[in-house]
């Protein structure tokens, strides 16, 4: 288990030394969420209706921005070979990398979303629900995205390929994530949506490191 924290710590430290890459996706999210209300105009009813969807689409695309870099650096400088030759479980190390990706890319979105949600005139409960749905949804995005990143590692034009591979798998998360907030707004209650998000999160956490490891082994052959 120690190796898990070693990898998380290493990836976070690496990210702190290249802040621009991390800020890139967060900045993207902030810009998208800010431009929409400006472009659409000050109609509270309309903004309330599109708010959750816009914020979720922004979060989804922001997560995808950093995906292709997830394993690429380690692949180029040979660190990935070290990982494969480590006596420790590769799955655990990959899970460490996924965790680091989420901490750098998902957590800022969870924290920023309620603030940006104010621009869409969302109610307080809706803002909390937005954060909760992102808290459950963004780890799924990181886990599923990591599989795409591992499979397209070393492939030319991998960035576009990742989107093609991963986007269809992101759709359910988007539907139920944004749907949770809308359901709450319309008075139906979001419990079903939250349960489904959780049901997507658990298998993603369990299977993703395993699938990534298999992909990485193939990429290095």
């Amino acid at each position, binding site marked *: 288990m120690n190796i898990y924290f070693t990898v998380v710590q290493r990836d976070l430290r690496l990210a702190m030394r290249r802040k621009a890459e991390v800020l890139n996706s967060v900045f993207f999210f902030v810009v998208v969420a800010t431009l929409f209300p400006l472009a659409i105009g000050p109609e509270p009813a309309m903004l309330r209706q599109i708010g959750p969807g816009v914020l979720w689409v922004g979060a989804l695309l922001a997560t995808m921005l950093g995906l292709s870099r997830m394993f690429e650096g380690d692949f180029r400088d040979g660190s990935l070979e070290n990982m494969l*030759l480590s006596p420790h479980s590769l799955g655990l190390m990959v899970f460490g990398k996924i965790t680091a990706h989420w901490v750098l890319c998902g957590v800022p979105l969870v924290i920023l979303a309620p603030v940006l949600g104010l621009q869409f005139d969302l109610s307080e409960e809706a803002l909390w629900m937005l954060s909760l749905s992102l808290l459950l949804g963004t780890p799924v995005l990181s886990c599923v995205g990591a599989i795409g990143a591992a499979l397209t590692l070393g492939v030319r034009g991998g960035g576009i390929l990742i989107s093609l591979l991963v986007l269809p798998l992101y759709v359910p998360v988007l539907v139920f994530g944004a749907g949770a907030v809308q359901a709450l707004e319309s008075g139906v209650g979001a419990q079903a949506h939250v349960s489904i998000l959780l049901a997507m999160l658990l298998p993603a956490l369990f299977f993703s490191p395993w699938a990534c490891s298999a992909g990485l082994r193939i990429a290095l052959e």
Partner: protein
Amino acid sequence: MNTTCLQVQHASVERAGRQLFAPVSFELQASQAMHLQGDNGSGKTSLLRGLCGLSPLSQGQVLWDGQPVQEVREFFLRDVFYLGHALGLKDELSALENLQTTAAMAGQVLHLQEAEQALAAQGMSNRMHLPLRVLSQGQKRRVALARLQISKARLWLLDEPMVALDSAAQHTLIDLLRAHAAQGGMLLFTSHQALDVGNAMQVLRLQP
């Protein structure tokens, strides 16, 4: 007790459907070194990668202490150190941080003092806190050699370890390899230079 440690039987590698070299068989025992030779593209790197399991061998078998490596993979990986063309070091981290993280990944407990000594032995004592991206290619290589020095693996697989080293660093490396062999370690390396590691050295030439 059987002292044979690494046995390779009829190993070969295929690339794009073409066999790179005629199948080779050899044994390495404690304190033995082997110089792997061959022309460019003859499959030296592929063989080394195949031995440590990074890429598959198209045929043949590798035995570690008499057992197929697939069955004792975890023990085998604890005992093997592979240094390839890519050094596996991060440009953003300092030499010291690189040593510590790579050692942790290799399943090794490394004390700070030990790491500092290894870097000092490579002549890097006043640069160990600098990020690697400001160092030269040869200095990065020296950091990789410091990794070698602290490694407790029994089998070293080195792919062109002499590249980009100045003559002082080359001598340090040769001393390191001799000391490893003297302590009962095994060594398999490729190099286009003659490398005198001691009297128990074999030469294997890969033939197409």
